[in-house]
């Protein structure tokens, strides 16, 4: 597969809409023609939410969907940046650096994919599922959330996946329990060629372990606190069997087999 790589650029973006799509989760749509035309599934943008607040850093967000010159971001309000983002209204101007990072890899000859999304881990799966469907790959989605009201992007997933199964912590939809129960069952039943995972890191680690046992390749999208987003500051390191990697440029998508999951406190045991 030969994917054209687009160099990142700073692009001013205009807010088109910003609304609640699930409990505690909103979707902001940004007019961003350059980024929307260049972004690949699993890549992210580094968003400068406000120029005048006392928080200075950008926030990294995966691109959920990109179409018609617009990008969609799903976000949960967790701190200063996302609180300010929630206050954005149409016609507000922000800027993004993007597209950034190394996204999902869809291997030639794949027939069946299992996509495992936990909570906001559904965000980078929108573009992925669209890409898999375009390639005629049969997709099973296993999605987890705290409750039915927090399951994201149901319509999109239902329309593009052969099967979309869910688990909730409170049993208000699907299986009462963790999505890792569903991923284990699907690995056994479906024998997918590739597994894609995003969600809380413990969940990613468990699914990665299931895939390793089943002998199925697995990709994970990891989240780290980021500074520059372009590979310079070394804030977002991920410990791999090949040394320290940067989530922003070497990731956020990694081959699960490369990741050293037992993170402990000190990279490589310290010096």
């Amino acid at each position, binding site marked *: 597969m030969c994917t054209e790589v687009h160099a990142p650029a700073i692009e001013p973006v205009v807010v088109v809409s910003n609304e609640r799509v699930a409990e505690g989760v909103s979707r902001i749509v940004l007019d961003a023609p350059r980024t929307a035309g260049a972004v690949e599934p699993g890549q992210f943008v580094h968003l*400068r939410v406000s120029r005048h607040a006392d928080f*200075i850093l950008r926030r990294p967000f995966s691109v959920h969907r990109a179409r018609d010159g617009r990008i969609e971001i799903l976000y949960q309000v967790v701190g200063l940046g996302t609180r300010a983002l929630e206050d954005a209204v149409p016609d507000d101007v922000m800027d993004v650096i993007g597209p950034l990072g190394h996204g999902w890899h869809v291997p030639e000859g794949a027939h069946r994919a299992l996509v495992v999304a936990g909570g906001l881990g559904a965000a980078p799966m929108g573009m992925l599922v669209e890409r898999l469907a375009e390639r005629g790959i049969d997709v099973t989605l296993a999605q987890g959330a705290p409750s039915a009201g927090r399951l994201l992007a149901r319509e999109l997933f239902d329309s593009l996946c052969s099967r979309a199964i869910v688990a909730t912590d409170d049993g208000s939809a699907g299986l009462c329990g963790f999505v890792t129960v569903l991923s284990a069952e699907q690995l056994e039943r479906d024998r997918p060629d590739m597994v894609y995972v995003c969600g809380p890191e413990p969940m990613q680690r468990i699914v990665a372990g299931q895939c390793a046992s089943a002998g199925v390749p697995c990709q994970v999208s990891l989240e780290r606190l980021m500074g520059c987003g372009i590979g310079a500051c070394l804030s*977002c390191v991920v410990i791999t069997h090949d040394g320290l990697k940067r989530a922003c440029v070497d990731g956020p998508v990694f081959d699960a087999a490369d990741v050293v999951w037992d993170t402990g406190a000190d990279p490589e045991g310290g010096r």
Partner: protein
Amino acid sequence: MSSVDMRVRIGELELRNPVMTASGTFGSGREYADFFDLGRLGAVVTKGVSLEPWTGNPSPRIVETPSGMLNSIGLQNPGVEAFCAGDLAWLAQQDVPVIVNVVGHRADEYATVAERLDGESAVDALEVNISCPNVDAGGMAFGTTCPAAAEVVRSVRAVTDKALIVKLSPNVSDVTEIARAVEAEGADAVSLINTLLGMVIDTRTFRPVLPRGVGGLSGPAVRPVAVRMVWQVAQAIDVPVIGMGGITCPNDAAEFMLAGASAVAVGTANFIDPTTTVGVADGLERFCATRGIERVTDLVGAAWKNQ
């Protein structure tokens, strides 16, 4: 076209303009070359380079603070040999002076790295980092007492004739004493400030956010502290001062030069807008032009020279 003379000198080194990058915020420049031509900068100052590879600190390595951030990267770098073969070889192809930041656990390690870099024609100057707050041995430990600072500078001065800049820590009671001590050992310039020692405690976990507890504070929050220290040091020594600390716009750079800085560096702002450095360089030229200032060096220390 503006007729402002933007050239400045740091020891034997002439820069096309006074704007450089602050070590550790710009990698070795490769990451930023997607956004602008590095040849528009006064100089690129690289991340810290040590004798052996350093793995740096555990995550999380940063935490945001009001108008700033704490970092605890811990000088992760591949060691001087890998640096020369990789980043330096790339930088040698760029049309910009290269200043390599040098770190070590012991004075002799600094000297060994400096000696290795002295043999590289692509290196225009060395910046001796005796002020990183994020490593247990070396780093800031050398920058907070005069004898230790002097020892490191003496050992590096002995092995190189390249322009020698010493990066000072603000975490001292009198920064001018340290500045005088390193000047006496042959430093061609000093740069300041490195980050201020800080801490953030997570009130949910009752623990510091950063695994090492402390980190280095940078960003606009530190600018007044940095300007004050540049003002003090520039009046205490005869060699040039490179000023930095929270510069985000041309006006901030002018403020440092008025305080006595002969050149300036942009740090944390590179994370916010990767083109900040060139914006500051162009804007500083406009700042001078609109005020009828013919040479950017006319700004240096103007806040106290004409009192």
